[in-house]
């Protein structure tokens, strides 16, 4: 998992990674060792929280680098990242779907603008070769995959929560 953590760290801006990357890895390794003795649901919660915290943190760092805005507490997922029992909000799939739709609309509008500037008659279209499927389709595919993975993750967490397996952590073994 440390290798995965290290690779996710590359989402951060380089200066943040250079300054805190080694420390973050060391702290993650220690925290991982401490949850190794816990149950499967606790370990899942730990990895989910870490992954979510890293991605949200990386986004905030990029926003800060680009705009100078410091967004602690402004972005709703930061509050979620500190929760002891990590879980997706029910609104998450809806939010992700809205983002996906917004991206698709933006792509469509961009295409319309391009067509208005360069009419179809003056532009040679097709046949489309593999080299045309580069950035935009890859981006769409990436978002679709992320959406799918998010949905699956949410379904698993929701199913675990419904099954009551998270309550096993609170049970104490043995009676006197």
């Amino acid at each position: 998992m440390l290798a995965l953590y290290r690779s996710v760290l590359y989402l951060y801006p380089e200066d943040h990674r250079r300054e805190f990357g080694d420390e973050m890895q060391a702290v993650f390794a220690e925290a991982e060792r401490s949850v190794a003795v816990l149950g499967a649901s606790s370990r899942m919660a730990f990895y989910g929280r870490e992954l979510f915290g890293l991605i949200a943190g990386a986004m905030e760092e990029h926003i800060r680098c680009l705009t100078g805005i410091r967004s602690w507490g402004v972005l709703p997922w930061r509050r979620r990242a500190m929760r002891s029992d990590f879980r997706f909000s029910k609104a998450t799939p809806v939010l992700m779907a809205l983002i996906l739709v917004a991206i698709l609309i933006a792509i469509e509008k961009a295409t319309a603008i391009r067509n208005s500037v360069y009419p179809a008659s003056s532009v040679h279209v097709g046949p489309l070769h593999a080299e045309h499927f580069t950035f935009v389709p890859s981006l769409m595919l990436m978002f679709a995959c992320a959406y799918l993975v998010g949905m699956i993750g949410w379904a698993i967490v929701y199913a675990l929560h419904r099954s009551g397996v998270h309550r096993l952590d609170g049970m104490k073994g043995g009676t006197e």
Partner: protein
Amino acid sequence: MEPLPLSEPVLLILVSLAEAPRHGYSILKDVTAMSDGRVTLSTGTLYGALRRLLNDDWIERFEDEDTSRGRQAYRLTANGRRHLQTEVRRLKQLTRVASLRVAPRER
């Protein structure tokens, strides 16, 4: 500068460092213990907060003897302690008013 009132994770991090210099993992454990397990910070959340607190000069790096395994300790600066005291006073005032208002009234 960190806006007041402080968010709960930042407040807990500052309270943790007010007692003694700590490194990252120690802060994580202390925050969880102080909040009775209710707040568990991820490393991403922790180091985002530490970076901002360092930039604002609320905390500083501390040369600990145990620098093995990439450990870096942090401690509160005088500036950070002053802001933390301000926040604690604000919370005291708030809890005092709240206690008075939610206390059962005698008829």
